[in-house]
């Protein structure tokens, strides 16, 4: 048999049913999680009704949701504040984490020297950071950003380190055979080969980022502008339990959205993980060369 025909047969088919299967995939990936959230809310509602849970202990989910919609004008700026802290902190943490990971992977001396400090930094209770951060940085957004970055950078660093140290040595040797510079080897091989690890670290960081922002709002006061966490605090002290639960739902929604955003950017950044064929480049129009052109 002609080898080319055999290989063609083995190559995956460009399926004509692709659109349909994509719709099914979206339904499966979005529909099932949404359904499970609805089920949790229903279960919650059922427990509250069946066990006659007093509204000041646990409200019905609808009451919690209503407390959010009724106060949305008040909540919205606070939500934006939490999102801003999350984004700033996450970006700072991820950049710092990536930078530290790269530097430590490249200089074993720094690795040995810095790593224990990094581990130590994660042992510091965030609560203990609150007062010193406020005394140094004041009541603004900065101390919250520092706390988020503090939490986010570590998993990024650890994963980037792992990713960089597990790049296929043969691939690096091949680059050497070609006479590649260290710089190009780094950008063309080591960084892309660590993308999956980088995103693994960022996904862990993303799940912590919003929690970090909320914790930051709690341990470093915000002054007159207030914060989502303090809004919840006030609702709690005022026995407004529906608002406490409603705020928790809002925080959860921010957390999930942020995580999904990171997952989404991973999908965009690593098309080879899911696609068979690359998309046409958006940036470069390639000249077509007639196949008859021969060099030799």
């Amino acid at each position, binding site marked *: 048999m002609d080898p080319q025909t055999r290989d063609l047969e083995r*190559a995956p088919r460009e399926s004509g049913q692709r659109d349909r299967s994509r719709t099914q995939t979206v339904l499966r990936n979005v529909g099932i999680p949404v359904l499970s959230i609805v089920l949790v809310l229903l279960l919650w509602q059922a427990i509250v009704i069946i066990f006659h849970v007093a509204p000041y202990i646990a409200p019905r989910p609808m009451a919690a949701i209503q407390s959010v919609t009724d106060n949305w004008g008040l909540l919205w700026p606070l939500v934006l504040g939490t999102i801003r802290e999350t984004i700033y902190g996450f970006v700072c943490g991820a950049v710092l984490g990536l930078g530290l990971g790269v530097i430590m992977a490249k200089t074993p001396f720094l690795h040995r020297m810095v790593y224990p400090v990094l581990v130590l930094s994660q042992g510091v209770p965030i609560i203990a950071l609150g007062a010193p951060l406020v005394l140094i940085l004041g009541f603004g957004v900065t101390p919250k950003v520092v706390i988020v970055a503090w939490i986010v950078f570590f998993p990024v660093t650890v994963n980037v380190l792992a990713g960089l140290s597990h790049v296929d040595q043969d691939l690096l040797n091949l680059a050497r055979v070609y006479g590649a510079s260290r710089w190009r080897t780094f950008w063309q091989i080591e960084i892309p080969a660590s993308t999956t690890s980088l995103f693994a670290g960022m996904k862990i960081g993303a799940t912590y980022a919003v929690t970090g922002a909320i914790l930051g709002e709690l341990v470093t006061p915000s002054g007159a502008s207030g914060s989502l966490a303090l809004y919840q605090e006030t609702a709690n002290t005022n026995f407004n339990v529906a608002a406490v639960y409603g705020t928790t739902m809002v925080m959860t929604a921010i957390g999930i959205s942020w995580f999904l955003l990171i997952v989404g950017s991973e999908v965009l950044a690593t098309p080879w993980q899911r696609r*068979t064929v690359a998309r046409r480049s958006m940036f470069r129009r390639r000249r077509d060369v007639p196949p008859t052109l021969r060099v030799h």
Partner: protein
Amino acid sequence: MSSNDLLQLRGVAKSFGATLALEPTSLDIQDGSFVAIVGPSGCGKSTLFNVIAGLLKPDSGEVQVADHVVTGTAGHVGYMLQKDLLMPWRTVEENITMAARLTRGVNDDDRAEARRVAEQYGLGEFLRHYPHALSGGMRQRVAFMRTLVTRHPLLLLDEPFGALDAQTRLEMQQWLLEVWKEAQRTVLFITHDVDESIFLSDRVLVMSPRPGRIIADFVNPLARPRNLDVLTDPHFVELKSQILHLLHGGR
């Protein structure tokens, strides 16, 4: 070029600690020839290749490629391993142009050349595919094209078909001969497979381990072009028996 030899090794030796991996070895490889190297595991074949490729600096001796001393320096040969080492995040076309990307940046000529070889050797439809979408044979062909477009006259192929199934391997061997003929390169080809070494080569070097050294150098008497019928040719059978005897003693 003062001689007809593309590659010349003069007394090249390499030890790892107390172990002599390659005893002083001299070798001349004629330009345009296809030379196979067979030998058991640990016979120093890969050490030899790594020295030629410049990945390892030999303890002594000299490597010359096209009359230039290149001992211990990389960037003078094409190199391909059993592992295809394709970058999963790059398309077929981008993988073929990898050497340019790693050294000076890819230009339109590189891309045109990549498309030309891909189309010429049966992968034209897969230029935009990612490696994971290809079969093992197709991946090895992409890896070979990547080696080919470096334009280095000397290609080191280290068991490139070792991981393929028997059927695919046969197809790839025929394909390689076709490409070799058209591309007019010099090939050094490591293999465990004696049939493969004879089927492909002009010359077969046999190596033995502890310490690694070349113990025999056969000129392959088989005429080209070859097809699968040569596998039963008396010359083939004779050469094969000689090589097997060297490799396995009287057993």
